[in-house]
């Protein structure tokens, strides 16, 4: 009887193992399929005749400052150099705003707030992190655009109804703050109590301990939060397209001027387009994937350098 039970248990274990392996394989294969499709379609504009329009020039595509020089459906002169720079610029500004807010929020929730308040704030942050980006986009279109437009009037600058770099940065910052806060808060809570007690026992104040011991110890986790935040900012399309203004040419770092990102350009007119104008969006997607990989690589490298705890 016992032998039979053991055989059954072993059989179940093997079955569960196989099911889990199959699930993991399935999930990995989806990623592989997506990557293959993006690469295959994304590269095709540079190697095919594009229904008589001719091959897209790769160098011009990567360095151009005019999205399309010529008529849609009749030209192959695409350029996204300015979009690459705008995308990185906007992601960087969003991170600069979101980073301190997220870290200090996380520190407050994890270490300073009374437990009931901390739990409530943690729940609220988690809910905010789960809100779809379209909601943030609508908030941006309904509220942030007006705020930015009014701000532009105050500082004496003419803005296009608030469609601007600043609106995009604010919306993205608002969007990534909850994600970064949740992850940073987990990292801060994971700091060993012995370190904190040791700091306090040596006469450091709670504030000194929080800033010099807790945050220093949680650096690695905080960097992970930044990596995910930047990833979300780089990849966001819907919310950005509602507040950016879909700039079609030229690099602009001015806060009140219209802008565009790789993703918002991919989304622009997506439902109505065909041919090369459709396929080129896969090429933009491919460039975006490379940029996200590079940024992640760089941030991970920085994380490995600064993430070491030296308390």
């Amino acid at each position, binding site marked *: 009887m016992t032998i039979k039970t053991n055989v059954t248990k072993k059989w179940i274990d093997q079955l569960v193992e196989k099911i889990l392996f199959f699930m993991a394989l399935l999930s990995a294969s989806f990623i592989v399929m997506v990557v293959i499709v993006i690469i295959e379609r994304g590269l095709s504009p540079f190697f095919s005749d594009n229904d008589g329009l001719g091959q897209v020039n790769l160098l011009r595509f990567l360095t151009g400052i*005019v*999205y*399309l*020089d*010529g*008529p*849609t*459906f*009749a*030209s192959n002169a695409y350029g996204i150099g300015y979009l690459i720079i705008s995308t990185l610029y906007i992601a960087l500004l969003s991170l600069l705003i979101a980073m301190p807010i997220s870290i200090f929020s996380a520190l407050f929730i994890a270490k300073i707030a009374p437990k009931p308040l901390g739990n409530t704030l943690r729940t609220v942050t988690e809910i905010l992190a789960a809100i779809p980006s379209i909601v943030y986009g609508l908030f941006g*279109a309904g509220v942030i*655009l*007006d705020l930015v*437009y009014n*701000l*532009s*009037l105050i*500082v*004496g*600058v*003419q*803005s*296009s*109804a*608030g*469609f*601007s*770099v*600043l609106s995009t940065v604010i919306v993205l910052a608002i969007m990534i703050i909850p994600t970064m806060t949740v992850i940073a808060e987990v990292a801060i809570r994971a700091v060993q109590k012995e370190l904190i007690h040791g700091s306090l026992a040596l006469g450091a104040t709670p504030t000194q301990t929080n800033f010099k011991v807790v945050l220093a110890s949680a650096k690695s986790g905080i960097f992970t939060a930044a990596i995910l935040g930047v990833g979300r900012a780089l990849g966001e399309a819907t919310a950005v397209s*509602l507040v950016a*203004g*879909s700039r*079609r*040419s*030229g690099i602009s770092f*001015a*806060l*009140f*001027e*219209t802008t565009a990102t790789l993703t918002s350009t991919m989304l*622009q*007119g997506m439902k*109505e*387009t065909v041919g090369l104008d459709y396929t080129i969006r896969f090429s933009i997607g491919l460039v975006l994937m490379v940029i996200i990989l590079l940024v992640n690589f760089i941030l991970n490298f920085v994380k490995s350098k600064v993430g070491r705890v030296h308390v």
Partner: protein
Amino acid sequence: MNMQLKKGTLFASLAVILAACGTTVSSSSDNSVASSATSVAPEFTTSNNIVLYTRDTTSGTRDGFMGGIGFSTAAKNDSLLTDGFVIADNTAILTAMSGSDKYGIGYVSLSSVNNNVKALDFNNVEASEDTVLDNSYGLKRPFNWMLRADNDFPSATVENISKAFVAFMGTIEGGDTIAGAGAVALNATQRWDDIKASYPVCNQDNSAVTVRFGGSDSIEKVAKAITASFKPRCGNFVAEHEHTGSGDAYKRTNDPAIKDTAVGKDVGFASRNFADAEKKVGDVALPSAQYGQLAWDAIVAIVHKDNPLLNVNGDILKRMYEKASANPIRTWAEALAAEAAL
């Protein structure tokens, strides 16, 4: 003290940075006008730059607008537009003009215009269904249809359904459908029930019959709305839509070299008048029953309610939107001067 100085420096720097971040607004005392004679007259600084709003290059409304102002080349080409334009959808343009952007100008379909924006007259004619239908409003284009020749359809059933479809477009129900899709329907007096007896093909089950529709992509939305409305009234035939441009309305229904290929169509649409060459096959003119108009696509230039501009023409709008214009209009003062010269 030192801290206060630092704070002050910070705010001053921020103000400088923000101020350097775009086109500077002229002071309100400079070239300001009151847009109404009422006691609370809103300020409008005419020396400010015009902010141009446009739909994206796949939009039929943009196609109609650019064609209507004599700037067809810009219908699909952003690089011809004045720098600084904003690409936005219908809702975003209306939202910008109704509140946040005093100095913007955009265009929307007549059916979208509301009381929160100022609709500009075109050549001194106010945009309305009446002025569109009596042909006095000029910023519009016709939506036309064209059928294959009699006995040239894949089957008699397809021919009869196609002709019933054309008849339906001229009914009150057809007109409602067209209006619901954003176009201005022609005046109709009959209901479908009044004429359906003339089309017995609609009394049978047509679920195995496919009717092919094509031509203008600007009309695609309207055409799909009409077929969706007409299908249940005519035996649930299958409507196959492939809209590739107005030029294909004639080519794919009547051009002998193309109409019988795989891309041939039974009903074609064109968002412009048919050229003379498209009204004949060889030297033989098409019968008048083989083509006609189903609707108008009327487009209205809109601005903020505080904007003193009231009337424009195609030339003024083109000079605003065209980057390489020989006589560009870039500020509202220039636009008002051009309006005064009309």
